[in-house]
């Protein structure tokens, strides 16, 4: 007769945790709490408890697989201590060679998106066509409808962007107002530079 192994408890939450582990292993993208609950046919609160159990089991230093909350969902990734070995096995084509222009474009779309190519060009001061095309190809940007006025295509960042940058969601980005200097500071600096210059 098949008997459960002694280490595996028959506690219902434990059983749910095993189901969720299985779902996360077969999924190709992070699964939200609701998606997990629907697939496991259980309620979200219990799924959350089960995720707590799994998170404890799969964490850095304890397992080669780590559970993470990323891109609005839950997913498994490799532990960082295995990064070198993973690097020998895989390339990282998505984020390899992201130029400063690409990062600026991503920042604009992540903070101000959905926005159009002309919006991006206006902020960066150079045409954005090539950069946007390459980011679309890498799957970091996606189309998000058309502009009401001009009919230009609007873009948004994808869940893959959040995953690559390890963000739980876009709200994990630092506030834009806290970055850079504000207009007043900049003006004072411009004036200071002008004053220092010999007549």
């Amino acid at each position, binding site marked *: 007769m098949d008997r459960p192994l002694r280490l595996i408890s028959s506690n219902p939450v434990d059983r749910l945790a095993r189901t969720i582990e299985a779902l996360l292993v077969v999924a190709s*993208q992070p699964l939200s709490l609701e998606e997990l609950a629907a697939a496991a046919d259980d309620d979200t609160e219990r799924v959350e408890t089960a995720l707590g159990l799994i998170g404890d089991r799969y964490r850095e230093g304890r397992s080669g697989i780590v559970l993470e909350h990323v891109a609005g969902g839950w997913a498994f990734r490799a532990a960082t201590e295995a*990064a070198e070995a*993973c690097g020998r096995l895989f390339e990282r084509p998505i984020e390899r060679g992201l130029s400063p222009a690409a990062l600026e474009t991503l*920042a604009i779309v992540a903070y101000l998106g959905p926005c159009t190519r002309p919006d991006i060009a206006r902020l960066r001061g150079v045409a954005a066509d090539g950069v946007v095309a390459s980011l679309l190809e890498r799957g970091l940007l996606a189309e998000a409808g058309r502009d009401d006025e001009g009919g230009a295509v609007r873009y948004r960042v994808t869940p893959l962007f959040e995953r690559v*940058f390890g963000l739980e969601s876009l709200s994990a980005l630092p506030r834009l107002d806290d970055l850079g200097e504000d207009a007043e500071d900049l003006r004072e600096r411009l004036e200071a530079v002008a004053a220092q210059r010999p007549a």
Partner: protein
Amino acid sequence: MVVRELELDLDAFEGPFDLLLTLVLKQELEPAEVDVATIVLAFLERLAERDELDLDACGEFLVLVAALLELKARGLFEFDDETLDELDPEEAAEELARRLAEYRRIRAAAAWLSERLEEESGRYFRLGPAPLAPRTARRVAPQDPALFADALRRLAAEPPSVSLAHMALRFPPVAEFLGRFRALLARRRRFDFDTEVQGLSRAEAAVAFLALLELRKSGEIELDQASPFAPIRVARPERPEEEEKEWIARSA
């Protein structure tokens, strides 16, 4: 120092400054693609290599770069031109500072992303090709069996038969008109088609016209119409007898 020969190495262009300007003026290079800041840096580096300040070169460079900047700005701010023109210098300076500040924040955000990417470089995860979408079961609201039975009963009832009377188009045979026109031509040398079909239905007139075409094809009649929609004149050709006479004459 010759400003026009300043060697540039930009994303969009590589070569001397004057060639860049020529390409922009000939509209073979989009000014929006040109990173002006890099050009200025290249010039400043070249300037720093020399001990003395070459004022002529600086002046020339300023004029050229200002022209390039204006072209680029016009290209990038097509829609804002009028509003910018309306601003007084103080407001324009404010606007410039505001835009620069906005861009600085974006650059800072890009720098933050870059650092984040560096920090997260040890994260490896699986990327599958097919996105999975666990479907939530659609729950149907409780239904009344009586309503279902009623719907079935209505479906099972014999539908009323639809009358097709309006679709019946009775066409008289073409032969009827063939005979009629032949008889007419035996009596008269020519007649007016429109007069003959007057008072007939559209379908009958159409069949009469088919008969006319049939007779024309076999060479029994000649048709003549002065202009589109003018009355069609039908005539019996005189040929058979005349031709016969000609043939006789020639063979004689």
